[in-house]
């Protein structure tokens, strides 16, 4: 897009901000026990205040209530969504994005407030406004805009019963994303099992990883003064010599320090995920995963023994086990 085209496009989309997407949508069904039961069957929700009339009547709820997570369900459009969805302002706005190459759409956030419990007989009406369109953002998926809609839910008395903010990203899929799409859509039905993030292999450390691939944990040794060092690097910190060779580690050592990684969880890694600084018998330290033990069993000074092993289709690593 040229700057002029971008300006025209942004003027067009910004004209939608603040507008209701259409007339308020009155739910086709009032809150009712059948739809409540259908929902709780699928979510596995066995709370007796949703389905057990006798229990609910005696509880603080004073009778059956709908799960709050059904708030939006009462006013959904239904089967028309997969045939001829009604053209409202929101869909019109999305079409403008599509026409300018922002064809991707991704729900990124919802935030829902519940003001009161809904009961059978309540009538829910949804009022949706296009509340906000962000500046142009560069995201991992591609360049795009976040569109935020706010829906106010009211009851048969016109009182507010809840509110939902819904944020989507409308984006121009970047080349990488498009390529990934093509390969996943065409290829197997199931995604390949995830693997760990690959360690980069460069001029100074590729030899170390190649030894790992052969099942050996190596420690670099200065040819000038004999000092051992890890991780691999070109020059000795003691005597500045750039001449070196390497010895094979005994894989014996102890935990110098450790931590457990909780969040965010990465696919391809086993949890609980314990990472330790291991003090090897030879004197150098390295960072590796602890395996074969629970987090609460680990302590500083714990004797460990390493094993160079294949952890997934792409990676061989030294793991350390309680000795």
């Amino acid at each position, binding site marked *: 897009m040229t700057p002029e085209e971008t300006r025209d496009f942004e003027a067009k989309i910004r004209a939608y901000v603040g507008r209701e997407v259409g007339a308020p949508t009155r739910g086709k069904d009032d809150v009712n026990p059948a739809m409540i039961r*259908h929902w709780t069957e699928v979510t596995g929700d066995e709370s007796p205040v949703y389905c057990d009339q006798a229990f609910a009547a005696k509880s603080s709820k004073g009778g059956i209530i709908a799960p709050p997570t059904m708030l939006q369900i009462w006013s959904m459009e239904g089967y028309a969504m997969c045939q001829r969805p009604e053209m409202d302002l929101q869909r019109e706005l999305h079409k403008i994005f599509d026409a300018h190459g922002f064809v991707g759409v991704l729900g990124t956030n919802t935030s829902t407030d*519940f003001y009161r419990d809904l009961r059978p007989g309540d009538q829910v009406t949804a009022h949706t406004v296009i509340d906000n369109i962000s500046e142009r953002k560069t995201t991992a998926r591609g360049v795009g805009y976040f569109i935020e809609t706010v829906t106010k839910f009211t009851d048969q008395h016109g009182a507010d019963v809840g509110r939902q903010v819904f944020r989507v990203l409308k984006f121009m899929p970047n080349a990488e994303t498009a390529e990934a799409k093509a390969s996943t859509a065409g290829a197997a039905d199931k995604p390949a099992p995830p693997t760990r993030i690959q360690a980069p292999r460069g001029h100074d450390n590729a030899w170390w990883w190649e030894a790992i691939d052969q099942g050996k944990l190596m420690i670099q040794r200065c040819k000038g003064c004999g000092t051992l060092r890890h991780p691999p690097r070109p020059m000795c910190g003691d005597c500045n010599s750039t001449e070196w060779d390497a010895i094979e580690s005994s894989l014996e050592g102890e935990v110098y320090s450790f931590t457990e990684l909780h969040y965010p969880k990465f696919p391809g890694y086993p949890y609980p995920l314990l990472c330790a600084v291991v003090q090897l018998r030879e004197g150098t330290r390295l960072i590796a995963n602890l395996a074969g033990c629970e987090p609460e069993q680990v302590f500083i000074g714990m004797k460990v023994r390493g094993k160079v092993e294949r952890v997934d289709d792409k990676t061989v690593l030294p793991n350390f086990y309680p000795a």
Partner: protein
Amino acid sequence: MNKTTRRYGSVAIGEKLPPLRIDITSGLIIGGAIASRDFTPVHHDKAAAQAGGLPDIFMNILTSNGLIGRYVTDWAGPDCTLKRIDVKLGAPNLPGFVMTITAEVNAKDDAAGTVDIAYSGDNNVWGTHMSGIVRVALPKEA
């Protein structure tokens, strides 16, 4: 089934909720979409999902909300009241995945009698499916 409600005073910040493992199946995805009256094709029609770049149908947002709501009220008990559910969406949930929800209490509001539960729902293939905060009101007295 939990018929006992947690009391506000008995909950401590840092308390962990028991993890919940959910097998993601086509049945759960389609059943959740239809029970939430969400007939968007990508939630029941594999060809439509593939046209959108994913290998299979994927869970709709209402079902993710429903599952996290259920997870918290299972722990809190029938007299609790859900006040807010915030969901930050991550990787989609596809058939064959397993999602594990974990959570802990991360804030309390004495005046309102509400506790905030910080949760994460992680699937075993693509990682975090959803994370955020659920705010729930608990009765103060037994």
